């Protein structure tokens, strides 16, 4: 072999750490034995490496095992602090988005529909829920909504008077089988039609919900919108009034206008007798669904840290949109042309629209027109409770992560929730008094 290049020669000197193959090692050894130039180069490399090694020996004084494990513990504590801060920033921006825009049920319905369309048209997949996609808006509007039949000139207006939990097995919801197989061509048609299905307009922006500096600011905002701010006189151990932070939400208004002809075409593709029998109003091209949220104030309390995760809870209060009518906002407006009762009954008769268990629960809701159906996960425990004489619903997470209590009083919707027990949520709720 010819003379050895410097890199290989250096590697040769560092056997076995350099991982040179045995045959290469042997070849280099043989070459060095007969080549004085390379042998001299090797000696220089050894001397240079030795000098670096000697001088670098003092570079990194060893730490004792005890010091190292102390280091690791300190570092872990610091790591958790950093992580919490970062997670909160992320959670904060998510909460912000959700509070500002996704509060809107119709918006959410649209997202769900989009999601379902994407799923149903994914290649190599059994088309999932394409039929339900178009109906999601209606399902949300009719089944998952605050409803109370108070008809006015243009809309049937619905507000919340009571609450009922409906168990939603999410797995079931995303794998509901199609009424039947549809072809690829039909899928493309569906996609095109979906774009023309309807339009959403909303006054909600990502800034609709924002933070204010003090209780006084929150109170001023709330009274501008006809609300009276309440604050708890009872706080769970470890919480102080000083930890309170305030967020306010502007009133928002959204409208979804559905193109009836497109909806019918879409459903016709699916050859489902139940879907084709939906009682659409005669001679109506467009149906407009409205959804209004009143002004709201959210108060957040945190107790710092318990070493693992931040603990906290929030109190949500909504202003009264119209004191002359019973029930509390948010308000849903359904088109007057639509026979809501008949449509709801027809929707609930569609097989596989929602998981059977969920469908059955929705069918069994008494006074559905005034009941806000709250989808809860399967493992949550729900109890009917009273808060200062008003009916409320307490939802306690099955894994003990927290609880949520919702109730309405005098046309105002309230919620208390967070990493607190159900008892604490009730104690806080019962202690709410007007801020002066």
């Amino acid at each position, binding site marked *: 072999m010819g003379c050895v*290049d*410097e*890199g*290989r020669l*250096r590697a040769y000197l560092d056997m076995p*750490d*350099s*991982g040179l193959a045995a045959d290469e090692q042997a070849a280099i050894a043989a070459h060095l034995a007969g080549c004085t130039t390379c042998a001299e180069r090797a000696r220089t*490399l050894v001397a*240079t*490496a030795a*000098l*670096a*090694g000697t*001088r*670098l020996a*003092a*570079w*990194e*004084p060893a730490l004792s095992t005890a010091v*190292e494990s102390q*280091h*690791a513990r300190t*570092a*872990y504590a*610091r790591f958790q602090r*950093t*992580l919490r801060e970062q*997670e*909160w*920033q992320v*959670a*904060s921006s998510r*909460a*912000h988005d*959700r*509070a500002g825009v996704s*509060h809107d049920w119709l918006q*959410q319905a649209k997202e769900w529909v989009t999601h379902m369309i994407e799923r149903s048209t994914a290649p190599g997949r059994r088309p999932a829920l394409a039929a339900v996609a178009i109906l999601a808006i209606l399902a949300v509007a009719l089944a998952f909504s605050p409803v109370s039949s108070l008809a006015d000139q243009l809309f049937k207006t619905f507000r919340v008077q009571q609450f009922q939990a409906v168990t939603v097995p999410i797995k079931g*919801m995303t794998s509901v089988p199609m009424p039947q197989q549809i072809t690829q061509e039909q899928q493309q048609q569906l996609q095109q039609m979906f774009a023309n299905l309807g339009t959403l307009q909303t006054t909600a922006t990502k800034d609709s919900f924002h*933070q204010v500096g003090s209780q006084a600011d929150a109170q001023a905002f709330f009274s501008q919108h006809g609300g009276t701010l309440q604050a708890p006189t009872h706080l769970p151990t470890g919480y102080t009034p000083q*930890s309170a*932070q305030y*967020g306010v939400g502007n009133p928002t208004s959204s409208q979804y206008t559905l193109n009836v002809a497109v909806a019918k075409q879409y459903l016709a593709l699916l050859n489902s007798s139940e879907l084709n029998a939906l009682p659409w109003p005669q001679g109506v091209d467009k149906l407009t669904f409205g959804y209004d949220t009143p002004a709201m104030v*959210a108060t*957040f309390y945190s107790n710092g840290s318990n070493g693992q995760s931040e603990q*906290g*809870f*929030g109190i949500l209060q909504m202003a009264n949109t119209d004191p002359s009518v019973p029930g509390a906002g948010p308000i849903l407006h359904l088109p007057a042309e639509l026979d809501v009762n008949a449509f709801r009954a027809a929707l609930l008769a569609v097989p596989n629209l929602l998981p059977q268990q969920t469908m059955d629960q929705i069918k069994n809701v008494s006074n559905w027109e005034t009941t806000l159906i*709250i989808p*809860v*996960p*399967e493992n949550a425990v729900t109890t009917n409770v009273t808060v200062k004489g008003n009916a409320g619903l307490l939802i306690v997470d099955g894994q003990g*992560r*927290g609880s*949520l209590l*919702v109730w309405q009083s005098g046309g105002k919707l309230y*919620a208390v*929730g967070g*990493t607190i027990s159900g008892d604490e949520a009730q104690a806080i709720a019962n202690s709410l008094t007007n801020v002066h």
Partner: protein
Amino acid sequence: MSVKGDAAVNTLARGLYDPEQATRPAAREPETVRFEVLFFRHYSRVHRLLRRLLGSDEEAEDAAQEVFLRLYRQESVPPDEAGQSRWLLRVATNVGLNVLRSGRRQSARLRRTAVLDQADAPRREERLDPAALALAQEELALVRAILDAMPARARACLLLRHGGMSYAEIADALGVAPGSVGTMLARAEREFRRRYDEAEQDRSAHEHGTERS
């Protein structure tokens, strides 16, 4: 929205408006324990590597935090310990190189005391008289100056090898072919030696000059 208390709004929002979210475990919950295991399994090694690379406890600790944050954010972590080690080695080296290259470091360095010198001081004091200690400090300052003047990758290659890493590990850490580690190392050692010899000459010339005056 600000940081604190969003657990509450999240819980509210999860329960009220996002049933799918509500069924999902809170982010990372099930993995927290596993991550803690990973942290304690690998922290010392990562910290040692960075301490060696950077020559400062403070900087090594900051950089190690960054490494584990990246691990935490990683979508998939290698299931086996060897895979985890390799991943961490690579990321730690990259983070270390970034620190070495950052301009921020250059100015911060001037203000910072030589942490390693302090860490080592008690041990050396036991066996060295003050004059010898002063000499050792001077020697360490010289090595630091030489390393700081070298390109970051050459410095890393040199320090990693003389810290006991194999060529394969170094190749992995620096993202180069194993076959090129020898070349990099030989060059880095030669440069180190050249700078060291120059400094020695300066020093002896300086001492010589001092004696004469």
